[in-house]
């Protein structure tokens, strides 16, 4: 039998059920692997001391790494921010509770861009995460710690959140699978809010089957989240072998833009793979999608400016010292507690909601959002899926884009429209490509988007394509 940590979560589950490995062996092997974190992927590892809420009655599912944005009772939860340093929530998020109830031990909490704002994980107050494929490069963000942990052999699978691409883009840059489910498929209760109308949690896994298994555990309506509806009919493991009868739409409004040649080559090779499996490639129009980034960077900061207003030093978390009055306490706490990108977005969002500017910014952005959603509805009348590269480039170098927020924002160009439309989208590794400046080849992600609540169909198609692509590259030194 293969080494324990080479098993996917589904394989490990099978081995545990068959009695080939014990639950303790499985948990122990992964705890050991996580302890070897040299990527700064974990902010906290579960050594049992202060994690009563994470105690699993009977381990029967592989352990999981959880993005540090999920509140976990008694366990440090920072959202990658200084302002929540030392904060231990008094309650546990629905997603983590479901994992614990399903018998999955939590390995630890993973590093992330502060409050999920970023595409490189360089906005964490606790230092950047390194990409296991090339430690001079970023793992993507904001779920960078989760993606790096899975790709780097530090966790069999992980939980992330996606607001504009924060699961799909790091999954692509780290060569793993990342799924952003339909808005409302999984409860947001206990997931620290960035942009409430966009945030959705989802799996980062080694393969599509693991993504299906994790989604099956997580999905469902939750009385604690009025916007959660779950997936009627649940989720089954995918087993589709071909793509015959399915139409895949390529939106030239997005793919016609300039992006890395290596990424384009992998994308085009994947289109051929789809056709070889009997799938049909068609052109679709998403005329408003190219305005996605502009709309997103109004809506998300606007909601964030309100969501992050609660970090005021009054009730929990960090409080600035030596202040004389209330206003000074607010100002200094937030000045010291938040990082530059978070402050930038709070200011953008505050401005966009201000009286006199609301209609021109927030109102207008919501109209664009509606148009993008309409574009997808129209497209899905003619095709089953919409496909794009996940990210315009492979993993870029640490520090490469930190001085230029706009070029950083453009990383989400392909992923943001699906977030705005609230529809599910998956990124699967489709091949390797050289970075623009040359160097060893790095993973390229392929994004497939489906209509709202069509997760099963999406996973089935992604599974068939994954089998055909047969991506088996691993970062140096990682087994499996």
């Amino acid at each position, binding site marked *: 039998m293969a080494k324990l940590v080479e098993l996917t979560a589904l394989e490990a589950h099978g081995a545990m059920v068959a009695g080939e490995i014990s639950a303790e062996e499985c948990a122990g092997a992964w705890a050991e692997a996580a302890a070897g974190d040299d990527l700064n992927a974990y902010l906290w590892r579960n050594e049992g001391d202060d994690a009563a809420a994470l105690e699993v009655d009977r381990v029967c599912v592989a352990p999981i790494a959880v993005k540090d944005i999920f509140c976990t009772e008694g366990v440090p939860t920072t959202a990658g921010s200084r302002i929540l340093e030392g904060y231990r*929530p008094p309650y546990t998020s629905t997603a983590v509770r479901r994992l614990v109830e399903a018998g999955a031990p939590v390995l630890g909490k993973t590093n992330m861009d502060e409050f999920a704002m970023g595409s490189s994980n360089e906005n964490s107050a606790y230092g950047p995460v390194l990409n296991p494929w090339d430690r001079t490069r970023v793992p993507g963000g904001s779920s960078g710690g989760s993606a790096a942990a899975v790709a780097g052999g530090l966790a069999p699978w992980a939980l992330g959140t996606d607001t504009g691409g924060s699961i799909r883009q790091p999954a692509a840059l780290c060569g793993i699978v990342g799924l952003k489910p339909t808005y409302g498929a999984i409860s947001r209760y206990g997931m620290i809010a960035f942009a409430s109308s966009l945030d959705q949690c989802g799996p980062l896994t080694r393969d599509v089957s693991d993504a299906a298994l994790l989604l099956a555990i997580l999905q469902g309506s939750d009385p604690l989240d*009025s*916007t959660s509806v779950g997936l009627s009919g649940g989720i089954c493991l995918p087993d589709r072998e071909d793509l015959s009868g399915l139409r895949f739409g390529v939106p030239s409004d997005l793919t016609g833009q300039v992006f890395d040649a290596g990424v384009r080559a992998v994308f085009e090779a994947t289109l051929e793979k789809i056709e070889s499996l009997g799938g049909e490639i068609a052109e679709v129009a998403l005329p408003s999608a190219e305005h996605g980034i502009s709309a997103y960077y109004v809506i998300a900061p606007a909601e964030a400016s309100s969501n992050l207003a609660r970090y005021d030093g009054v009730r929990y978390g960090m409080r600035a010292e030596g202040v004389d009055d209330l206003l000074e306490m607010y100002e200094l706490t937030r000045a010291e507690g938040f990082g530059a990108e978070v402050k930038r977005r709070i200011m953008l969002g505050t401005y966009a909601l201000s009286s006199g500017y609301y209609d021109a910014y927030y109102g207008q952005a919501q109209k664009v959002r509606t148009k993008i959603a309409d574009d997808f509805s129209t497209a899905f009348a003619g095709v089953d899926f919409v496909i794009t590269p996940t990210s315009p480039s492979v993993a870029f170098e640490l520090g490469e884009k930190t001085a230029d927020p706009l070029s950083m924002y453009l990383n989400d160009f392909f992923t943001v429209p699906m977030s705005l439309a609230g529809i599910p989208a998956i990124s699967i590794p489709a091949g390797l490509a050289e970075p623009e400046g040359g160097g060893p080849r790095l993973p390229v992600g392929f994004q497939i988007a489906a209509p709202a609540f069509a997760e099963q169909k999406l996973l089935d198609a992604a599974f068939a394509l994954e089998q055909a692509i047969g991506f088996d590259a691993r970062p140096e030194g990682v087994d499996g």
Partner: protein
Amino acid sequence: MAELEAVIGLEIHVQLATKTKMFCGCELSFGDEANVHTCPICLAHPGVLPVPNEQAIFYALQIAAALGCEVAPRSIFHRKNYFYPDSPKAYQISQYDIPIASNGRLGDIRIHRAHLEEDAAKMIHVGESGRIHGAGASLVDFNRGGTPLVEIVTEPDLRSAAEAAEWARLLRTTVQQLGVSDVNMEEGSLRCDANVSVRPAGSKELGTKTELKNMNSFRFLQRGVEAELERQRELVEAGGTVTQETLHFEPQTGALTSLRSKEEAHDYRYFPEPDLVPIVPTEEMLREARESLPELPAARIERYVGDLKLSTETAAQLAGDPDIAKYFEGVAEMTDDIESQVVANWVTGDLAAALRQLNRSAEDRPEPGSLAKIIKMVSEKQISHKSGRETLFAVVENTELDPQEYVDRKGLAQMSSDSNELESIVAAAVESNPEAAEQIRAGNGKAIGAIVGAVMKETKGRADGGEVNRLIKEKLAE
């Protein structure tokens, strides 16, 4: 210069008496130890989400029905953003451009809108003034934070401070009868702000308004509005202009101090609350809300005037307090051969006086049956009105007391006109007051008082006044 007319609109916050808070499962409370009714949701921990209280939505629909409002088929919540320690999320979940109810009416006053929102936590400023300015420290009690509120906003239809206070009382009674709130102003379950402006009488335009806050009784509401109207009238008459601002009314001194001007007004950056879905009341909920309405004061006044022939004034007095109305109807039921107005007069007059003078509360009212017995004895002239009142006082003091027994024990039974006893007392009184008798014969009717007085003194009030008058005139005519 044309006379200046007052233009007043009210904003009334009603705390709903639901079991739990608006968006979490914490119990509602008043007067409990600080910060015991809290949870991660109402303390705004990271990651929590609001879930609306269904009962609060139903109560709001009942209020909407009682105020004759239109109910929005799909109303939404907004976030009202502001930083203050009483608002742990740094935003209040409220309703903005699509409130649950609008365009209603109560009495003559139009209702602009009624919307659902959550209450802020309670701030306690430690220091002499009790206000934040100059406080040594400020404490926050989150027990109140998240209590469901309905804010009711009127059109600027009120024309005097007295009218505003009177209408606010009617609103309180109406909400009270729905049973959806404790409506206690002192405890803050009913709070009232007033928008006040003046304009030349007959003008259609609205003047610049000021907003008055912190009037925690109807008396203070009236005084505050009066003071502000006077200030505005003096200002405008002296050629000045009113500045838009928010004013704090200090009941102890009657002073109005500015909290903030228009320039300092908050920009609340309202936007639709993404954590909540729209409120879409079902036909069934709407019907249930309408059908659950008890008889409300306005309808009751109409019935009292129309069916029971009460004066409008008395009807309003009774209908304004559901307890009194119920009591009155109980007494009236047992005295159905007596005019309702007479019964009502006993309830609003003698009984109210007895309770007041004996320092008794409304709960100390005697059984309706006791008062009915007294009213019957008086109308059947078994006892005088004065004796009736004395009996009522005795019954209020000791509610166990049977009125008949008291009348018997005290010998209050009226002397009947056919008994010789009264006739001989009258004769004696006429004889012992020759001067008065002479004046009456000379045409001075008022002089009869002296003789009546003497008779009443002799009979200890047991004689019927009308009968005594008749007997005296008969005697003098002999």
